[in-house]
């Protein structure tokens, strides 16, 4: 294309910058996505975060509790209810045993239920974290807490922090990409990939499977690429004249901005086009081109990782299994969600591994909280279907690749799966660990706002070194 190579250099040319001070806000915000050096050598270059929005039941997937089966149908002990706040449970609910059989798999002997028949194959690549806990028990605040470190709107999301801290490797694609599938968007809205008080340039860019993959990326009908290319060249020439007269270096940034946009118009659709993948890949993931599905998004995540996108956030919504209707039932919608994610997330791990990308890509899977060992009794009544309420005390997440120890299970819950009893991990610890794998010290990645330095992990968080290689 030969467009403005010099100006492009001015925009991207600082990849060799080795300053260790990342938190300075004096950076040139006209060039906000320059690659910046991490605090220390990172284990992971990219993150794929698979968020199961709505919160899947750990008790039907990974946290096997035979004791809970014994107490199925009995009143929940008072000690679990005193002083607790639940979203819907009232009075004394009954315990609900696991609704599906479990087995141990792999050399590691990890427990997985029969709802994830594919995932059983990759347990030896995965680190299971069984005693995650959070501060929030409603969807929106808990999703915000998981992704932004605080329960209210207004804080930057993890991907925004990382893009702010590290810049973007690929200047022709957004550095932080969001892919959404399932019932609808996550409860907390776009704030879960927002930039909060950071400049808006650091927010996640939602790539969509229908309509324009990036907002406004398609040329309007009747305007061809040739005409557009000529328009961009003309704009560059006119802006050069403006620069000669006005001397403002911002004008050079404007030239690069338009040339980059033009290139992005090519690279985004190309990255989003899964048609070019071979048939066996489609079979492995269970993808169907043209659909909006978790499977398609998993394959897209791998394509984006290959292209240097730093943070890829998948949301798959519809896991809220209260038992109040068929969609929200452990014997209904929940089973379909399991089917939707099992094969593609397994394929993603295998595919990354085959391509040698798993070592440098941290994959994280989980909901915003877990589900109660008790059956939900909304309004004091027996629900028409089997379901569990929101549970913040203990739930399971897993990580794979990016310097995590494969084939381990870390953390334990009590015999009923209510509390974490060993190696508990708070959401802030999880966040500190993810930043750490990306070469960022969570206490140093800060931004001055409302008179004080803010960070993702608020005033808490410890890196969980035991799960790292």
């Amino acid at each position: 294309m030969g467009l403005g190579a010099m100006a492009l250099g001015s925009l991207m040319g600082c990849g060799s910058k080795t300053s260790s001070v990342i938190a300075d806000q004096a950076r040139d915000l006209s060039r906000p996505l320059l690659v910046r050096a991490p605090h220390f050598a990172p284990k992971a270059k990219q993150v794929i975060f698979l968020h199961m929005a709505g919160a899947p039941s750990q008790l039907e997937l990974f946290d096997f509790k035979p004791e809970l089966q014994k107490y199925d149908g009995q009143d929940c002990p008072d000690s679990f209810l005193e002083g607790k706040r639940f979203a819907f449970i009232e009075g004394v609910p009954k315990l609900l045993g696991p609704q599906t059989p479990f087995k141990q798999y792999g050399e590691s002997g990890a427990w997985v239920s029969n709802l994830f028949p594919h995932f059983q194959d990759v347990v030896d690549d995965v680190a299971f974290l069984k005693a995650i806990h959070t501060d929030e028990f409603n969807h929106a605040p808990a999703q915000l807490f998981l992704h932004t470190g605080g329960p209210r709107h207004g804080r930057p999301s993890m991907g925004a922090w990382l893009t702010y801290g590290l810049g973007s490797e690929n200047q022709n694609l957004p550095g932080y990409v969001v892919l959404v599938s399932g019932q609808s968007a996550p409860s907390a809205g776009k704030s879960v990939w927002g930039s909060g008080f950071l400049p808006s340039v650091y927010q996640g860019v939602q790539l969509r499977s229908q309509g324009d993959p990036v907002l406004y990326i398609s040329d309007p009908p009747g305007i061809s690429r040739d005409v557009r290319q000529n328009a961009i060249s003309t704009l560059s020439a006119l802006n050069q004249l403006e620069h000669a007269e006005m001397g403002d270096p911002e004008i050079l940034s404007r030239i690069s901005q338009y040339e980059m946009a033009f290139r992005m118009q090519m690279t985004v659709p190309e990255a989003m086009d899964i048609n070019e993948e071979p048939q066996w890949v489609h079979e492995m993931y269970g993808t169907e081109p043209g659909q909006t599905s978790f499977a398609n998004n998993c394959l897209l995540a791998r394509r984006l990782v290959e292209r240097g996108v730093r943070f890829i956030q998948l949301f798959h919504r519809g896991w809220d299994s209260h038992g109040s209707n068929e969609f929200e039932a452990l014997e209904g919608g929940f089973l379909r969600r399991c089917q939707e994610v099992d094969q593609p997330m397994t394929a993603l791990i295998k595919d990354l591994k085959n391509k040698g990308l798993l070592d440098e890509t941290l994959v994280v899977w989980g909901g915003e909280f877990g589900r109660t060992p008790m059956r939900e009794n909304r309004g004091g009544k027996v629900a028409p279907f089997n379901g569990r309420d929101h549970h913040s005390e203990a739930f399971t997440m897993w990580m794979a690749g990016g310097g995590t120890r494969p084939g381990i299970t870390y953390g334990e819950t009590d015999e009923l799966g209510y509390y974490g009893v060993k190696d508990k991990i708070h959401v802030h610890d999880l966040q500190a660990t993810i930043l750490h794998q990306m070469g960022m010290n969570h206490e140093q990645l800060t931004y001055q706002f409302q008179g004080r330095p803010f960070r993702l992990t608020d005033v808490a968080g410890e890196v969980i070194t035991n799960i790292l290689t």
Partner: protein
Amino acid sequence: MNFRLTIASLVLVVFTSAFFLWPKKEVTFNADIRPIINNECIACHGGVKKSGGFSLLYRDEALSELESGRPGIIPGDAEGSPLIQRVLHTDPEERMPLDHPPLLKKDIEKLSRWIDDGAEWETHWAYIRPDATLSPPATRSSWVRNGIDAFVYKRLKKEGLSPAEEARKELLIRRVSLDLIGLPPTPEEVQNFVQDTSPDAYERVVDRLLASPHYGERWTAMWLDLARYGNSQGYQKDPYRNIWAYRDWVIDAFNADMPFDQFTIEQIAGDLLPEPSKEQLLATAFHRNTMSNDEGGTDDEEFRVAAVMDRVSTTFEIWQGTTMACVQCHTHPYDPYRHEEYYELFAFFNNTKDEDKGHEKPVLRAYRAVQKPVVEEQLKGFDELCSTDFTESYSSLEGAWDGLWDLMDRPLSPCVRDLDSEEAQKQKTALRKLAPPRTPILQDFPPDSSRVTRIFERGNWLVHGDTVLADVPAILPALPNDYPRNRLGLAQWLVHTENPLTARVIVNRFWEQIFGIGLVETLEDFGSQGEAPSHPALLDWLANQYQHEFQWSTKLLLKHIVMSATYRQQSAVSEALIERDPANRLLARGPRFRLSAEQIRDQALAVSGLLSTKMHGPSVMPPQPEGTWQVIRGVLKWETPQNEDRYRRAIYTFWRRSSPYPSMITFDAPSREFCVSRRIRTNTPLQALVGLNDIVYLEAAKGLAMRMQSEAGATLSEQLAHGFSLAMAYSPDEAQLENLTTFYTETLAHYRQNPEAVKELVSNPDLQTPEMAALINSANVLMNMDAFLNKS
């Protein structure tokens, strides 16, 4: 604690004797000491942590006995003060700051001298009232037009710089139009100004702009970020909030040049004024812009408290440039605000009746003037059916317009009540849809049933501490005895002459809108961690002028700013000056920066001839890409109108916090969940995509192309030049025109060979020519030029 005194003292003696040989330079706390303390010490010895029992926030604390049994500072005795001994210590385990590089020699010298001089604390500059006797420095420069220039000129001389030439007239009128009304000048306005050689030509332009109704719209755009105005309630469901009438109140207040003290009092406490008018009640919707949460399992009290906290933070950020959020949980780490003082402020706001309920009560139900013609039109239908004149009979009633709604609730005329024909039912339904807005407002419980305010330990609303009464922080002037201890008293105190912050903070906000950077860069933080002012005396003098000379008239303030020679300078810059002063802090040139999200939209619509100048009313839904709007249980639909509401100014755009209008977010507009003082201007490819491809900008390009074709002569260069000057306010030079001509010619050739593409681009069959297609693309280029997107 072992201080290893011998070695330390020895070092100190050698060291101090060395610098006593130098001439003694005065050390002042604010200039020399506070920066050292804030950068090196306060994180461990401040409002949050007091390691070893030592804090440097207040003098009495710093001089009191520590855990070691001795004070950290002994005034008059640097050598004997543990602070100096510890910063000089040779053992890294003992040396302060711990685990950090030692202090610079010169900083230790300063600290020693300051302690020897008595270790006096100074109040931070922003808490000291501006000197009332301050006047602009005398100067003989003919460049100086008013007081602003005298201050700026003095500084430029000191820096060895000179001011720039005045901007050319075309650019000046574009600049001042965009600044004062947010819209570009029309070609006639440009031409008149260029031809008008009378000495007051510019002043008359300024006066015309200040009198324009669009003035209020432009400044409302600034205020809405501060007021965190949105058309939704926030949080998960983010349902509709009926609060557009507040936005209209702000527009009207700016247009009427409501004095800023009144503007303040009515918004914070209009309901507590004696016999408040409907407008004064409406003004209090300002603090009902807080979010509310209706999600299952949420505790209303938790989110009521969150809203009250937001009111404290927002009030202090907007008027005092003070960040109070830290003080929720603990004493301010750097600034002299104690934990309990936060809750004393909280108490002012803790008595309102709103309780995070879905119904949003209390509300004000009242028609707005903007609705009158539509409602009257509907009423006419009944006139005929009942052979009476409803408009007439209702407008003769007391409070006619607010009473009008009663027509439907309790019909005065039995005729209307009894009408049951299909036609009448239809009309009744239509009229019902025109219900008066129910705007959330503030209302206090009576004093005898006030809420009790308790300190929340570490900011946790469930852990209560001592009871506190409403009061203002001790570092600021006391609340006068005759002021009520409620929101009204607080509002009056904010705009009291003695308040050192309000006028400075507000003047600085307006300055930033005009010059792109504040005299204090951190608009939101005038505390000791904020940036120091670039021109302290100018800031103080302007603050004095605003309060006293201008009597809080914002129009007079803005007029003074734009009439200055400083403002009128041209904005071209040499490489040397860019190097010397990249952010234009010294003001040796005029302002040049990218327009705001609102200005970019409004300007594009204006130059294309599409802009609707309709003011006020419910928010509108201009086109946005499909699939960006989240439909939650069908509560809110995005329905793009086909009438002029499609082309309204940006401030009328429906603003849903969880899904704000995407193209404006791309240009750095905030989501409006919280008060935002300063938009950080960014530069991303996504912005280019908006200007190139968003249907709004494509429609604008088509509009501009049609103007180029219909308003200019027949020749290509006339048409291109006309488009250029519509967009940029000045005519293109030869090189610019040549580039545009080449582009047009090549594009024309392309469309001649691709007639299908012409049809795809141009929907109107009468206009489907290759020439029109090429003109649209040319207009699109013009509207993406840097010169168009910037104020220059």
